[in-house]
């Protein structure tokens, strides 16, 4: 079998595996649901994630040890990842092939020539790593913005699958929604359409992971090279060159993505994969000048403090950035989150959403809870997001820790925020309408939402008795609407405050229940038509901020009960109460 055939099989295999892992990232025990599939495997293989988190945290989180395998293999054989394994690379490879397959060889050779701009990816890499590297000033992990593995993971999981599944609802009962997914769409579509201009545009010019591989592959033991200096110079070896590395002349080893097309296309069989450097010469160093390197390093180092001047993770923090349960404090969280979207994909209620720009630039695409989206707030009996997080930005907490039971009894439940009641919007508080849906849905026992019962006299509810019997009162006024007080929530009160439930009414007569020995008012006395209201209160010490109340609140626009991040367990400086 030809090596390019093996490479194609490898690409199809790993691409299919990747898509399969995306599909099965659904909670459940059916064959197409998560069970024990290692759905983070591609993210774990990604050495950019490993190295960047090492820079920000000074440790290698254990599942990321897989990245060592990738590095070791790259050092030995070169950038195999790009052309053999990377699912994003395979997409570019295929679309680039489709777009340019009918062009003449001369045009293809021209398309695939090396370009100076291919060094942009090194600048991107250096900027990202510099942002991650200097904790003494400020560090942040932003590789996930352009790292191809998180990028393709979130694009498939949070954009393509929800669109494809929307007509059949096979993967989820209700439509999965992701706020701001249009931005994924623009990034993903742009990355793919750029292949129409130059094949593997993203890989050649942008990909910071590719740049990292380029650097690590400079000592590769095997590399592509010509076995003769002189050849017919037909340049056919460059017609399908995926990396734009110019194997015909001085090959740029750092740009070579090991597609092996040159080897297959050389009519004279002069291009080989070998330990000997190319006889036509080779360039192993990435094409980035010392000045370019210094400028990008300096920009990266300065960028983080520049962003941090907004104080978005300190005093000016955003109250509606509610992080999933188990998330680290904001600073350490941003040092680990790679914006892969796995937590948003696995969340059974779809409440975890990609952040937009509301929490500052650094927060883009990090997980936040939006209780207006999804099937309920943060589910009480669920810790899926922490279990799936590949970098432990959300710790893999247990249910016991989340609920504050078992050995976590002394610590109490984990709070992700606190619900605040907006008394200006709440039906019982602001509009004298019974409701308490929030109280009903609070999953805690005892509930964090409790009620106090009050009786409020309604508008035009003061009436004068004209005639009365044992259980009926006729009023002088004829202002009542027939049957409007029969919901079981209306009472007739006397001046002394005693009251009886209204069982029926028409324009000028009220029928009342006789069970409370209510003393019927006489002619000329005033009666008060009152509504019984259970007004909700939030026990701030009990509330965990799960947001089920906010999700269920019937005030459907701006909810009358809303979760705010104050009081969240993860940050000591956002405490609200003296006692927690």
């Amino acid at each position, binding site marked *: 079998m030809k090596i390019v055939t093996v490479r194609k099989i490898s690409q199809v295999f790993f691409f299919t595996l990747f898509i399969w892992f995306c599909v099965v990232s659904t*909670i*459940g025990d059916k064959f197409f649901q998560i069970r024990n599939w290692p759905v983070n495997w591609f993210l774990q293989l990604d050495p950019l994630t490993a190295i960047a988190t090492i820079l920000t945290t000074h440790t290698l989180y254990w599942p990321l040890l897989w990245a060592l395998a990738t590095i070791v293999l790259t050092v030995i054989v070169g950038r195999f990842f790009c052309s053999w394994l990377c699912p994003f690379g395979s997409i570019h490879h295929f679309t680039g092939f489709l777009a340019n397959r009918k062009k003449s060889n001369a045009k293809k050779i021209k398309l695939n020539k090396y370009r100076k701009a291919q060094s942009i990816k090194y600048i991107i890499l250096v900027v990202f790593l510099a942002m991650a590297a200097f904790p003494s000033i400020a560090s942040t992990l932003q590789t996930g913005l352009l790292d191809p593995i998180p990028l393709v993971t979130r694009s498939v999981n949070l954009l393509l699958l929800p669109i494809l599944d929307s007509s059949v609802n096979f993967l989820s*009962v209700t439509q999965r929604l992701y706020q701001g997914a249009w931005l994924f769409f623009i990034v993903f579509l742009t990355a793919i359409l750029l292949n129409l201009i130059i094949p593997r545009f993203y890989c050649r010019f942008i990909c910071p992971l590719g740049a990292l591989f380029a650097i690590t592959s400079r000592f590769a033991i095997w590399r592509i090279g010509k076995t003769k200096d002189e050849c017919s110079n037909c340049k056919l070896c460059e017609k399908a060159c995926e990396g734009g590395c110019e194997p015909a002349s001085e090959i740029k080893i750092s740009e070579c993505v090991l597609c092996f097309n040159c080897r297959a296309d050389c009519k004279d069989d002069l291009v080989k994969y070998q330990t000997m450097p190319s006889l036509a010469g080779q360039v192993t160093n990435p094409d980035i000048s010392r000045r370019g390197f210094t400028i990008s390093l300096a920009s990266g180092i300065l960028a983080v403090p520049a962003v941090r001047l907004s104080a978005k993770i300190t005093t000016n923090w955003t109250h509606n950035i509610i992080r999933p349960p188990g998330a680290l404090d904001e600073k350490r969280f941003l040092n680990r989150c790679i914006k892969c979207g796995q937590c948003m994909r696995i969340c059974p209620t779809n409440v975890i959403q990609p952040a937009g720009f509301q929490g500052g630039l650094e927060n883009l695409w990090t997980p936040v809870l939006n209780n207006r989206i999804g099937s309920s707030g943060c589910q009480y009996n669920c810790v899926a997001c922490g279990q799936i997080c590949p970098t432990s930005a959300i710790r893999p907490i247990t249910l016991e820790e989340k609920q504050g039971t078992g050995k976590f009894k002394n610590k109490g439940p984990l709070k992700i925020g606190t619900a605040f009641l907006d008394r200006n919007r709440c039906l019982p508080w602001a509009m004298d309408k019974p409701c308490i*849906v929030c109280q*009903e849905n609070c999953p805690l*026992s*005892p509930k964090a939402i409790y009620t106090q019962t009050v009786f409020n006299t309604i508008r035009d509810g003061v009436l004068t008795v004209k005639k009365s019997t044992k259980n009926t009162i006729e009023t002088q006024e004829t202002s009542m609407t027939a049957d409007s007080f029969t*919901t079981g929530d209306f009472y007739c009160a006397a001046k002394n405050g005693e009251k009886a439930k209204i069982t029926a009414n028409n324009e000028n007569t009220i029928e009342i229940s006789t*069970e409370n020995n209510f003393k019927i008012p006489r002619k000329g006395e005033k009666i008060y038509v009152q509504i019984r209201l259970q007004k909700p209160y939030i026990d701030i010490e009990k509330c965990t901020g799960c947001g089920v109340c906010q999700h269920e609140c019937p005030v459907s626009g701006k909810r009358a009960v809303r979760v705010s991040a104050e009081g969240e367990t993860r940050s000591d400086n956002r405490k609200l109460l003296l006692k927690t």
Partner: protein
Amino acid sequence: MENNINRRQFIATATKAGISIAAASAAAYLLYDKKGPPAKPKAHDLVTFPDYSVPKITGQTISIVKGDDRTKSVDKAIDLLGGIERFVKPGDNVIIKPNAAFATSPALAATTNPQLIARVVRLCYDRGQAAKVYVTDNPINDPASCFTLSGIAKAATAAGAKLILPKENLFRNTTLAGAKLIKNWPVLYKPFEKADKLIAIAPVKDHHRSGASMTMKNFYGLLGGRRNIFHQDIHTIIAELSMMIKPTLVILDGTVSMISNGPTGGSFDDLKNTNTLIASCDMVAADSFGAQLLDLKVSDLPYLEKAQNAGVGTTDYNSLKPKFATVT
């Protein structure tokens, strides 16, 4: 090339032009809308739930069984009403409506007990010779999580029933004749459309707004849309739900009752062993008896009287001559 086109070319061009003009005019004619859009989109085609009830047999309308074993209690309770054969005929498609509202463990009794569901499913198949038994609900929490964590999914499917999750395309709009609230409102309809019999199984639970959640309140789970607005008039909506649907049989499980912190519960402290299970063809009677398990009177639950006034059933369960039994 000649400057003038010949006749043949002219006729061909003119024909194409003519067809284009005719097509454009026809499209304009067909799509012509003089009135403009209405204020609201057209009402959906409204649906009505089939009547699943079976003929009444005096003295066999409600049975009340004391005991702490749900399986034995439900066997006995149904037998006292004439056996499952009275309710399920060979070849029937039976739908079971549990209360699966919350994503909590069955031990916390916030949802219908899974063993009880499994038992009823088996009764339908083994003695009732049902063709197929379905289980469905539109819970409050995430539907898939509710059915999984409550144990209902596993128990029902193991017993041979098919679980139907409340997907968007299963909802249709309904209007209840004479109703104040259920007007052009989406309900979980499709799973019920083809069913021959409906058995609803609900636990006895405290409910802060309405007083108690039992067999009538269980049908809140048929509502779709932003149904929470109905809490403004909870008693009317519960009464209307009982008018909207006519089940074959309701089973009220008070083996363990949630006496506080309802309807979610969440702690064993909220539960009490009340060792009572009720089977009834009259859900008003069932709930009127069930109220006692929560130390409530009929008058504490205004929806009971509303339903009675609407002719759904009677709050005076004694008038139905309930059959009592105790199983050990």
